[in-house]
């Protein structure tokens, strides 16, 4: 008995000294300890399931409610469904001037333009900051970091004046052109960080083979920074798809509405009785983001963890 009691701590001490894993393992010999750990684990799981459940419940309830007759939304907090009511979706789809698909296509155009813009312009700037020596580099790099934190509202009024004077209000240009000019400095920073991690020897080898900067950038760096490009694509997708403020200001013609402003018009035009179709279109609008989340989660989490952003 005494032997068993004295052995485990020693074994435990040794295992923690030798193991390099950041996670401590419970020693199998110490019954009291492992029981304790198991209870602790159960409590943790209980907390997480409770908190997670409360967090996700409204979303699940919205999905279920969108498949219910309208009057149930006001008196049915549960999640069970008797029968699927698809009329909310068909009603909602054609509730506005255009079918909802029209706004989805508008959003898709803006998103696509923004993604292409960010990928090209930000990767070019990032290559310069990460690999090239030039006068004013430190100053520009500092300015670039500062613009990440610049509130959008400080520039919005003159930007609006500028774009309205060249006749771009109610076009997608004010939403896309800034991305072509690398104004999403956050992504420049993300890519700079990534390029710094690519061994310089690869550039040197290409240079010895007679490659210039455009060639090194296109043939060596770009193929190696695909993960950073993926992260940029995914974040640009989600942020642009959800962008409300920019669309609200620049797109006032229902023809040009993107999904967020179309939804807003929907909220305003409907009396409180049509929550069902409002929910249905909300879910339609969230669906692409959800898909991206499902398949791009790895890049999202890595992107956030390494650069720390919203």
């Amino acid at each position: 008995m005494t032997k068993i009691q004295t052995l485990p701590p020693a074994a435990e001490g040794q295992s923690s000294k030798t193991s390099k894993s950041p996670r401590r393992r419970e020693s199998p010999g110490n019954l009291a300890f492992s029981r304790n750990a198991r209870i602790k684990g159960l409590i943790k799981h209980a907390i997480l399931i409770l908190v997670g459940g409360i967090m996700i419940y409204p979303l699940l309830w919205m999905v279920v409610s969108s498949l219910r007759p309208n009057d149930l939304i006001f008196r049915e907090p549960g999640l069970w469904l008797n029968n699927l009511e698809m009329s909310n979706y068909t009603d909602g789809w054609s509730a506005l001037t255009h079918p909802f698909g029209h706004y989805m296509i508008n959003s898709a155009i803006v998103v696509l333009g923004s993604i292409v813009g960010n990928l090209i312009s930000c990767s070019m700037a990032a290559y310069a900051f990460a690999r090239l020596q030039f006068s004013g580099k430190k100053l520009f790099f500092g300015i670039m970091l500062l613009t990440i934190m610049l509130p959008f509202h400080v520039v919005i009024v003159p930007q609006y004046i500028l774009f309205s004077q060249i006749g771009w209000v109610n076009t997608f240009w004010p939403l896309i052109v800034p991305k072509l000019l690398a104004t999403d400095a956050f992504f420049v920073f993300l890519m700079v960080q990534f390029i710094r991690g690519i061994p310089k020897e690869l550039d040197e080898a290409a240079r010895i083979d007679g490659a210039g900067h455009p060639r090194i950038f296109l043939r060596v760096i770009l193929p190696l920074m695909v993960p950073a490009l993926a992260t940029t694509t995914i974040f640009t997708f989600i942020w642009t798809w959800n962008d409300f403020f920019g669309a609200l200001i620049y797109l006032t013609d229902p023809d040009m509405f993107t999904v967020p402003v179309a939804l807003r018009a929907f909220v305003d035009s409907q009396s409180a009785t049509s929550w069902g179709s409002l929910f249905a279109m909300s879910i339609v609008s969230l669906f692409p983001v959800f898909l991206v989340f499902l398949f791009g989660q790895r890049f999202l989490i890595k992107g956030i963890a390494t650069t720390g952003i919203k």
Partner: protein
Amino acid sequence: MSAIGELSTMTRRKGPMTKEEKKANGRDNKAAYVFLLPWLIGLVVITVGPMLMSLYLSFTDYNLLQPPQWVGIDNFVRMFGDARLHNSLRVTFTYVLVGVPLQLAVALVIALVLDKGLRGLPFYRSIFYLPSLLGGSVAVAILWKQIFGTTGLVNQVLAMIGIQGPGWISDPNTALGSIILLHVWTFGSPMIIFLAGLRQIPNMYYEAAEVDGATTLQKFWRITLPMLSPIIFFNLVLQIIGSFQSFTQAFIVSGGNGGPSDSTMFFTLYLYQKGFGQFDMGYASAMAWFLLVIIGAFTAINFIASKYWVFYDD
């Protein structure tokens, strides 16, 4: 390293250029500026130009139709006596000063629970992270409007246990609280940053503390918190900057008017109304610069205060 970390090291290290840097200088100038061209144009045309322009406009009266008229500091004097603006400041400050600490506290607690190789971690992480991706959308704001409405989900649940809840978003006392809750709901992204930070704390510190007989709480106060303080600081700075600019949720939940009785009239919402509702562009520009000064001041205070509580390992 984060953008903020990089900025602060840049300001700290101001020595003369090394020989290598001098030699390399100028070598790639032409190529570099070609690569930087889109960014440089953007900087001038989309960022710095409009910034200076809005600074100029803040001293003018301008409605888009007639040319701007110089009015000196009139707009700022007007701001001084504008009760609705003062109210919008109060609303925004409440939102930031309550919402941000609350959100970060939840994020930290959940990250601590999730740490230490819990089974099912990727699953939980996804569940907690999802709301922060959706939280900025109009769709979720619509959902919030329903949930916290008079006959919304919250009151339906409360009715089941016999409580008659108020109309959360139609009551000036609780409307802002509902929007703060929406902000707290999006704790997923700071949580992921915390998780990444927790991973980097060397395990040997905990082992040494255990040898000395430290309790869980002691380990948290003496090891986890100091080691995590740069990450907390980083999250704090970013969340404060972001929260000051919050717009969509208040706009949708209040139907665009910041109601009821201006209780959700965020500063940005008021700015939008002045600029794009009444086309009072001069006043809106003055407000925008005021916002920039406020955010700058908060960030500066944050950086100064960080000297007393943020602990750098190196």
